[in-house]
C-alpha cells in the first residue's frame, strides 16, 4: 500500500458479449477521496464497466489495479470485501426490514448466545446515520422511507461495509432539487473522509457541479478523462455523441396550422390539477419537468389510460371521453410508451406480429387474417421506417433498442394517426437511432400530425419542440418557446419557482 498509487486504476479493459463489443481498451484511474463522474450515451459501456468493477463480469483482457496491485474479482461478495460497493438504480434493500437491519445486513452485532443484539444494532446504525448528518429513524421499515431516504440508506449500508470506492448509478434520477442538494452534501462528506466516488449520471449540470474529474465513454471507448474545471456542457456532449448539437436535430421549417387539433381544458386526475393546453396540427409540443411531476399522467390520460376526474378534451373541435385506449385509437390518437419492453412490444413475438397487432382487423376478413396483405403491408412499413431486422419473423427482443423503438412507431403509422404521443421516445437507444426518430417525428409533424412529446432530456425537447410546457406538482407552471428557451430557463420553472406567475 504505497500512497502514491491511485486507489483504482482501470488498465486497458476490454469486454465483449455475443454480437457486441462493449468495452474497447478503457483506461483511467480514480484517486482516494475523488468524485469521479462517468458519462456516456446509453450503450456506451458504462454499465458493463460498472459490473466489471462490481465483480459481476470478468474483463476479457486488461486489468484492474487496486492500490497499485492487480485485482481479480471473484463475484460481488469479493468486490465488497475489497471495499468496492455499488448502488444500482434499483435499490438492493429489503423493504420490510428496518433501516438498521438493512444497513447491518450480514454483520449484525450478536449477543453471547448468538442471537442478534438489537440494542447495539440500533446504536450502531444510528451512529452511522449521524456520521452523515441525516435524520432517519433506524427502527422504521425501509418501505416507509422516501426514495431519497432509501438512497441514503444504501449509502450508509455501503459505509457500514467499509467501502473505499462507492459507485453510484444515476443516483439523482428520482430526486427533487432539495434532495439532490442533500445527497451531494452527503457525497462530499464521504469524499472528504477519503472515500472515492464514481458518479454515473445523465444530468451533465450535476456532473459539472459535483464531479472533480469526468470520464466520457462512447461506443465502448474512453473519449476523455479530464478535470471538470473549465469544461463546458457542450464539450461533454460533443465528446459523448461525437457530433455537434446542431447536426443532431432536423431543422424546424414546416408550417403549423392554426385550427387546434387537440384542446385540453382543466384536466384533473389523481395526479393532475387543472392542466390546460392546445396543440395545433404540424406542431411538436413538449412536456418538461422533473421526474414524477405529472407529465407521464398527461400522456396516459390522452390515450385513455387515466381516470379523468374533471376537465374536457376536444379532438378536432369535438369533445371526446377518453376512458380506454380503444376510444383514443378511434380518434386517431396513438401512444408510444416510455417503457417499450413492457408496454410497447410483445418481445417474444416477431417483427411482423408486433407491427400487425393493432392493425389485424384491417388485414382480415370475417376473423381470418389475410397473410399476404399483412406481410406486404408490414414489409412496406419496415422499409419506410427503416427498421433493421434480418427478417420479419425475428423476435423483437433480439433487436437493438433503436430498432425496437422503430418497430413500436411502425405499428402505429399504418393507420395514419393524427395525434401521436411520444413518451421518452429515445430512452435507451443510440445516437444514430435517436436521430432517425427525431427525423421521423419531424416528418410526421410536417405531414400535418400533432405530436405531444414527454421527455426528461431537455436537449431533445429544445431541439424538436415549437413550445414546451413545464410541469411541477401536477400543474403546468410555465410555457416556453422551443426555439428561444434555454435549459436553465426550463429548470428554473421545473423546480417550482414560477408557480404563481403562470396564468
Amino acid at each position, binding site marked *: 500500500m504505497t500512497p502514491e498509487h491511485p486507489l483504482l486504476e482501470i488498465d486497458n479493459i476490454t469486454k465483449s458479449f455475443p454480437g457486441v463489443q462493449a468495452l474497447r481498451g478503457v483506461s483511467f484511474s480514480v484517486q482516494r477521496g475523488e468524485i469521479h463522474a462517468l458519462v456516456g450515451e446509453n450503450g456506451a459501456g458504462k454499465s458493463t464497466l460498472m459490473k466489471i468493477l462490481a465483480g459481476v463480469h470478468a474483463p476479457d483482457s486488461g486489468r484492474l489495479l487496486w492500490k497499485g496491485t492487480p485485482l481479480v474479482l471473484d463475484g460481488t461478495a469479493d468486490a465488497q470485501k475489497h471495499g468496492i460497493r455499488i448502488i444500482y438504480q434499483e435499490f438492493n434493500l429489503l423493504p420490510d426490514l428496518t433501516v438498521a437491519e438493512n444497513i447491518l445486513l450480514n454483520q449484525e452485532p450478536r449477543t453471547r448466545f448468538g442471537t442478534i443484539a438489537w440494542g447495539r444494532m440500533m446504536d450502531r446504525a444510528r451512529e452511522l446515520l449521524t456520521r452523515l448528518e441525516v435524520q432517519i429513524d433506524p427502527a422504521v421499515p425501509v418501505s416507509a422511507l422516501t426514495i431519497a431516504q432509501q438512497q441514503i440508506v444504501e449509502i450508509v449500508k455501503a459505509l457500514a461495509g467499509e467501502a473505499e470506492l462507492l459507485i453510484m448509478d444515476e443516483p439523482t434520477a428520482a430526486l427533487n432539487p432539495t434532495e439532490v442538494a442533500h445527497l451531494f452534501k452527503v457525497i462530499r462528506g464521504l469524499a472528504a473522509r477519503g472515500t472515492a466516488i464514481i458518479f454515473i449520471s445523465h444530468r451533465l449540470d450535476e456532473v459539472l457541479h459535483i464531479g472533480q474529474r469526468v470520464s466520457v465513454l462512447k461506443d465502448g471507448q474512453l473519449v476523455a478523462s479530464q478535470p471538470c474545471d473549465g469544461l463546458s456542457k457542450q464539450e461533454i456532449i460533443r465528446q459523448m455523441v461525437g457530433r455537434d448539437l446542431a447536426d443532431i436535430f432536423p431543422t424546424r421549417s414546416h408550417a403549423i396550422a392554426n385550427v387546434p387539433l387537440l384542446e385540453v381544458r382543466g384536466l384533473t386526475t389523481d395526479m393532475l390539477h387543472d392542466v390546460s393546453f392546445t396543440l395545433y396540427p404540424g406542431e411538436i409540443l413538449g412536456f418538461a419537468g422533473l421526474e414524477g411531476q405529472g407529465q407521464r399522467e398527461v400522456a396516459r390520460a390522452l390515450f385513455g389510460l387515466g381516470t379523468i376526474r374533471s376537465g374536457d378534451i376536444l379532438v378536432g373541435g369535438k369533445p371526446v371521453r377518453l376512458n380506454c385506449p380503444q376510444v383514443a385509437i378511434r380518434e386517431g390518437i396513438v401512444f408510444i410508451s416510455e417503457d417499450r419492453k413492457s*408496454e410497447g412490444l*410483445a418481445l417474444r413475438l416477431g417483427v411482423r406480429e408486433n407491427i400487425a397487432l393493432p392493425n389485424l382487423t384491417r388485414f382480415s376478413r370475417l376473423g381470418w*387474417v389475410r397473410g399476404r396483405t399483412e406481410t406486404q403491408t408490414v414489409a412496406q412499413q419496415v422499409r419506410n421506417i427503416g427498421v433493421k431486422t434480418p427478417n420479419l419473423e425475428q423476435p423483437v427482443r433480439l433487436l437493438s433498442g433503436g430498432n425496437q423503438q422503430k418497430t413500436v412507431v411502425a405499428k402505429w403509422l399504418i393507420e395514419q394517426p393524427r395525434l401521436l404521443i411520444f413518451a421518452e421516445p429515445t430512452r435507451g437507444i443510440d445516437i444514430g437511432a435517436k436521430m432517425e426518430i427525431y427525423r421521423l417525428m419531424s416528418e410526421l409533424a410536417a405531414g400535418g400530425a400533432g405530436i405531444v412529446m414527454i421527455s426528461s432530456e431537455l436537449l431533445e425537447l429544445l431541439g424538436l419542440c415549437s413550445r414546451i410546457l413545464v410541469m411541477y406538482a401536477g400543474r403546468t407552471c410555465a410555457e416556453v418557446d422551443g426555439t428561444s428557451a434555454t435549459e436553465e430557463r426550463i429548470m428554473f420553472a421545473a423546480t417550482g419557482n414560477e408557480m404563481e406567475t403562470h396564468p
Partner: protein
Amino acid sequence: MTSITARPTLPTRSRNVRLWRFLRQNQNVAIIWSVLLVIVIISTLLSDRFITSRNLINLTRQSAALVLAGIGQTFVLIAAGIDLSIGSTIGLIVVIMAAIMKPTPELMILGTLAGLGIGMLVGAANGLAVTRLNLSPFMVTLAMLSFIFGLALQLKQNPPGTIPAEYSQYFTGDVAGVPIPLIIIIVSTVLASLFLRYTVLGRHIFAVGSNESATRLSGMRTDRIKVLAYTAAGFMTGLAGIYWAARSRAGDPLTSENFAFDSITAVVLGGTRLSGGAGSVWGTLAGALIIGILNNIMNLRGVPSNYQYILKGLLLVIAVMLYRKK
C-alpha cells in the same frame, strides 16, 4: 428514409435457407418430433407387437381424447393461463351425456350438444372468473376442478350410466378403413393450428400471452380475448368429453381425473411456454402421442400402471428442463 437495410422474406431464397429458418423458428416442435421418433424406434425394438395395425389403431383410440384436451390446454397456456379443471369437466360431461342417452338413445344429438355446451360454459366461467374477479388462473381453475368434480359426483347415477354402443361406433370405428380417432387427431390439430395462426382471435391469444399490457395499449380488449381463449379451450374440452364418453361408455367422473395433468404434460412436452406467448398445437400433438406411446409400450411389456405415473412425473420435469431458458 435513406438507410434501407430491411430484408423481408424473399421468395427467391433458396429452399435450404428457408427450411433452416423454418426449423429454427419451430425449434421446439422440431425437438419434440425428433424425440417422438426416437421413442417410436425404441418402442419398436422393445416389443414386436408395437408396430402392428391393431396396436396402432389402439394407440390412436387411447390418444385422441388427450390430443383434444391438450389442444384446449395449449390455447390457455399460450394466453398465459392454465386450466386445471379439464378432467372434472370431462367427468361432468360423461355423466350428463350418459344420463341423457342411456334412457333415450335417440337423443344422441342433444347429448352431444350438451357435452359441448358444458365444456364451453365451464371454460367461459373460468375466463370470466380470471378476468372479472382478477384472480390467478391457477386458483380459479383449481377451485373449478373441485367444484365441477363434486357436481359430477352428485349428478352421477348409481350404478353409473352408460353410453349406447352405436354412439361409440361414430367415434371409435373407421371410415373407409381409416380409423376415426386418427381422423379426429389430424383434423383437430390442423384446424387448431389454422385457428391460432390465421384468425384474429388466435393472433390475439399469442399477443395477450406474450405481453398483456402492450396488447391492451395496442387497443385490444384483453379481458375479452382471455375469456374467449378459455371458452375455446372449453370447446376442446367438450370435444374431448364427447370422445371420452364414446370410448369409455361409462358415465363415471372417476375415469377422467388425469386429464388436467396429462394435458399440461403434453403441452409442456410440446414446447409451449408455461408463461405464455409461445407454443404450438403440433408440439402438443407430439407430446400427447409420447404419453400415449409410453403408456402403450408399458402395457405391452406388462409394466404395472404405478410406474406409468412415476414416469409421467419424471417426464414433466424433463420437459420443463429441456425448454428452460438459457
